């Protein structure tokens, strides 16, 4: 097995490491500059039509929903999405007509909540094309390779399966053990969108709870847009610099959006809004319902604040905070 065995999946997101180094050198500033902006401006600037897009968080956890809604509002088109357990985000973006291609580790489903009517309709009708298959750890390690600036990462997963066959991996012989090993190509999304617990105006960011794939993805993406529950003074970052998960030079834009992950979970802060997720799953059963949902929650509101008012405002968010904290509903709410 001297020649690598190639597989059939389309290679997306890979760059020659030298080419990407040059891009990083020319396009990413190392200066600490104020990167605060608005969701509308960040999406306009960093998510052109046709982008290769990845989201921070995982499934229904810590998803940058304010940015997802803004992409739909700006009617972005022909995005390719990395389906790294992409659930609510990709479902809405497909429903909004923004996504035309997806590489799939996990998509078109809502975990325990069932399959995605909207995403499935799109992929089964051919409206959305699947470029290839991969696994969750496979993505994780494609991002790791990119974060490290190497062309590939050796892994022992996916071997022997159709998942591998429909991936962009190659298989070589490990020159030490003589055993076959899969090489996954580095993956550099054009842009990644994150929602974090707190960061300073330069982008130095802290995340509470699991980081899932975010450490590596933040370093793999060419552009990185952060929404944050809170912008904190740089001095807070300096006090415990070992809490910084994302250093500022990776970050292109910072937007303060309290409750910016709604209806997904913000770990330790607020829980899933199951009612709203269920509402989407019901509405998205038909194209008409999908359209109506967007009219109400995206096109019908100027921004995320107005959306929050619509879904129940401060009272609803306080309720989701209490569920997160494993507390009973307030007496006031219980009385309603």
């Amino acid at each position, binding site marked *: 097995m001297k020649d690598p065995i190639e597989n059939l999946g389309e290679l997306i997101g890979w760059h020659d490491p030298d080419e990407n180094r040059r891009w990083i050198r020319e396009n990413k500033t190392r200066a600490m500059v104020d990167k605060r902006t608005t969701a509308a401006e960040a999406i306009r600037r960093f998510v052109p039509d046709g982008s290769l897009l990845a989201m921070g*968080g*995982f*499934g*229904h*956890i*810590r998803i940058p929903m304010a940015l997802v809604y803004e992409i739909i509002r700006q009617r972005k088109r022909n995005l390719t999405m990395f*389906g790294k*357990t992409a659930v609510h985000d990709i479902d809405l973006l497909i429903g909004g007509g923004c996504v035309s291609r997806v590489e*799939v*580790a*996990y*998509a*078109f*489903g809502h*975990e*325990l*909540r069932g399959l995605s009517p909207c*995403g*499935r309709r799109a*992929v*089964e009708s*051919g409206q959305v094309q*699947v470029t290839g*298959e991969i*696994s*969750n*750890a*496979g993505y*994780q*390690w494609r991002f*790791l390779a990119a974060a490290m600036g190497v062309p590939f990462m050796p*892994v*022992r*997963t*996916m*071997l*022997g*399966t*159709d*998942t591998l066959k*429909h991936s962009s991996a190659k*298989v070589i012989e490990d020159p030490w053990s003589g*055993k*076959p*090993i*899969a090489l996954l190509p580095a993956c550099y999304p054009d842009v990644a969108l994150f929602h974090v617990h707190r960061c300073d105006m330069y982008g130095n960011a802290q995340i509470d*709870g*699991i*980081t*899932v*794939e*975010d*450490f*590596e993805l933040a370093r793999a993406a060419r552009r990185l847009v952060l929404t944050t529950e809170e912008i904190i003074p740089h001095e807070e970052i300096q006090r415990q610099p070992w809490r910084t998960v994302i250093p500022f030079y990776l970050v292109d834009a910072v937007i303060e959006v309290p409750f910016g992950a709604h209806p997904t*979970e913000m770990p*330790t802060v607020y*829980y*899933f809004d199951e009612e709203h997720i269920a509402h989407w799953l019901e509405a998205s059963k038909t194209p008409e319902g999908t359209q109506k949902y967007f009219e109400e929650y995206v096109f019908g509101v100027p921004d995320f604040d107005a959306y929050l008012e619509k879904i129940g405002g401060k009272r609803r968010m306080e309720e989701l905070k209490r569920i*997160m904290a*494993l507390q009973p509903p307030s007496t006031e709410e219980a009385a309603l």
Partner: protein
Amino acid sequence: MTDKPRYNLTELLACVAAGLLENGRSAFVGTGFPILAAMLAQRTHAPGLLIIFEAGGIGPQVPALPISVGDSRTYYKASAASSMHEVMSASQAGYVDYGFLGGAAMDCYGNVNTTVIGEWEHPKVRLPGSGGANDVGSLTWRTIYVMRKQSPQTFVKKLDFLTTPGYLTGPGAREAAGLPAGSGPYRVITQLGVYGFDEATKRLMLLAVHPGVSVDEVQAASEFEILIPERVAVSPEPTDEQLRILREIDPQGLVIGK
């Protein structure tokens, strides 16, 4: 008017699954049924079972059943809230003993499809894909499958798509493909019984039927031939103690039903 039965199918399967987990070992669990089974094991014979979630939660004291494998309840009072890199690497390095998976269809070697029904290029039904399943099935020592709808449509001769590796084409095939030596599917639990894999052929073999299920029913609910050994056990019924604990873990009946 009939009496309410003492336990339902989910409760039975949870007790069977819990019984497979050893004390002092580790298990990748997902939301729903697997976490229920793992927590039951912890509260009975395996208090030292280490629960790990693929998104990074390690050793939580789960306060309520989590909805997603990244849910903050998967690292509530945990030893570590880490990352996918951390736990998948630990699994690849040999630290994870058991993994729980489900699937839309399985073949006689324990290979599983969760990607498409029909052709990949033109799917009849598009399923979510591997997610972490291929990783769990590739990297943990022993994979336990739970498939509640065993039938000739789910126990199939040929998979439309091989998402997650079982024993691939038989003995030695995993190792020849480069998968970790000595790993693979360990048990399959369905609504009818419990299966293992024959050492010599790596084919699915019946180990036990659930109370009231016949061997003929088991074979009838499969497109491929299931190996039937001389002696087939019967799954033990849940004890009252087990049922009490299950209802403590899931008071709202989210997983076990109401």
